[in-house]
């Protein structure tokens, strides 16, 4: 693998590590309740108009980003089978942390037995908060500061009742235990970040629901950043879309990632496995990470994976992974993404309103 060289830093925008880094274990989580889009349109539009997805996942009354992160982290540890005391960082990226002040990451770290010799922090950047934790963990391990770091993207996203977001704002995510390349199921070939100041979606302190720039969220926001990050990555690696077995993109719905993939030159076949939004909705900071977990569930040694996240505000993190021989023995050590998606209890809008605290009491 090509090492970083300070003399090229100004030309080479890729973020590379000093030592080879990869994913040692991964774990998905999706809560069991599903709200069909037709239920949302029944309540708000008299059933007129199809939703952008089939259905979305909804957390139970006793679930939040901390409990969901704990289960995903336990799945990652079950696959990695390492001593949690060796982890030096637990980072949780989310826009729905249970507390405004008090970290989610300490709760998760304690629950998996990783405390106290550990760095812990909560990350924010709308839907990009999850991939940020992965990049930071890659840096932590890649610099030799830590042997293992746990990166999590998890959300219980909320949409204002009646808003278009209510069809898709969903709950779920994934955890990635980042560690040395020689013990990894997939190696990071490179990562890259593309960021600008773009006001497409935001939530002010104390507000329960986010605001968004309606049509402004597409062209100058999602497509611009996903496209730029994807193209820059392909160029920097001198790679073609056809060089990859799988591609996964942030998925606020089904259409956006399909169009972004097409514009970059990827086929429907390449994105099919990781495109889960139609059945779980937009799980925000967990979105692209959950799609990547579904890909790792079925990937074979030697496969190459192309990954681009997106977070409003705005930016995209691109990553390229190469799957190793260690994948086969670890895939079955924990529940797969499809096991969580298959575990499904349909609820109506009234139950949804109760579960999500949308009723004034």
């Amino acid at each position, binding site marked *: 693998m090509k090492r970083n060289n300070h003399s090229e830093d100004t030309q080479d925008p890729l973020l590379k590590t000093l030592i080879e880094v990869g994913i040692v274990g991964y774990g998905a989580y999706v809560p*069991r309740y599903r709200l069909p889009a037709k239920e949302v349109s029944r309540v708000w539009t008299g059933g007129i108009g199809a939703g952008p997805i089939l259905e979305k996942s909804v957390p*139970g*009354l*006793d*679930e*939040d980003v*901390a*409990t969901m992160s*704990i*289960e995903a982290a336990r799945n990652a540890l079950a696959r990695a089978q390492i001593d949690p005391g060796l982890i030096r960082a637990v980072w949780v990226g989310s826009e729905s942390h*249970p*507390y405004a002040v008090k970290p989610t990451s300490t*709760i998760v770290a*304690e*629950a*998996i*037995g990783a405390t106290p010799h550990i760095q812990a922090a909560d990350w924010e950047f709308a839907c990009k908060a999850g991939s940020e934790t992965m990049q930071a963990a890659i840096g932590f391990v890649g610099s030799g500061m830590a042997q293992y770091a746990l990166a999590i993207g998890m959300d219980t996203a909320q949409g204002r009742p009646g808003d278009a977001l209510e069809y898709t704002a969903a709950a779920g995510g994934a955890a990635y235990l980042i560690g040395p390349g020689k013990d990894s199921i997939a190696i990071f070939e490179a990562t890259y970040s593309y960021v600008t100041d773009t006001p497409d979606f935001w939530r002010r302190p104390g507000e329960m629901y986010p605001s968004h720039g309606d049509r402004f969220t597409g062209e100058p926001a999602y497509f611009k950043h996903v496209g730029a990050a994807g193209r820059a990555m392909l160029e920097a690696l001198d790679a073609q879309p056809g060089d990859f077995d799988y591609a996964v993109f942030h998925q606020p719905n089904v259409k956006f990632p399909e169009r972004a993939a097409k514009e970059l030159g990827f086929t429907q076949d390449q994105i*099919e*496995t990781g495109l889960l939004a139609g*059945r779980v909705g937009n799980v925000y900071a967990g979105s692209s990470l959950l799609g990547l977990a579904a890909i790792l*569930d*079925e990937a074979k040694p030697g496969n190459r994976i192309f990954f681009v996240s997106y977070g409003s505000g705005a930016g995209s993190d691109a990553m390229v992974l190469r799957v190793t021989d260690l994948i086969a023995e670890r*895939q*079955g050590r*924990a*529940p*797969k993404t*499809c*096991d*969580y998606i*298959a*575990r499904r*209890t349909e609820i109506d809008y009234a139950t949804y309103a109760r579960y999500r605290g949308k009723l004034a009491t």
Partner: protein
Amino acid sequence: MELPQHWRLADQRYRLIGEKCPHCEASIFPPHDVCPECSKPAGSLYTFAGTGTVYSHTTIIDAPEGFDGQEPYVVAMIKLDEGPLVTAQLTDLDGPPEIGMPVEMVTRKLRTDGDAGIIVYGYKFRTALEHHQDEAASSQDTAGK
């Protein structure tokens, strides 16, 4: 319950940490100073696997303060695979629970002290999640979508 007590109980609540008696090998939960089996001083910490079966259960309709908003919910005695009985809430139920049903531990919100207070997390149990371990099952799943 006071804050320091929540905090002190975090290990056993979050991770089902009990003890293994060094004298008679009994698995002990919750941790005691003295082994309930042989009455000798109890020993080293032991993390339970978190799997067991439903031993008995009851449905709570009228919830105490802090648990309101969750009712109706089911509280069960779980016989852990290592032996001890644990009282805990069953969660993610899809129909009535059955005696002998295999369950697994999950960490969930137990209660909240109003809108401004702390959130208390701890163990609950749910029906063991079905998961496909073999290659054939997983490829079938992905083909079906």
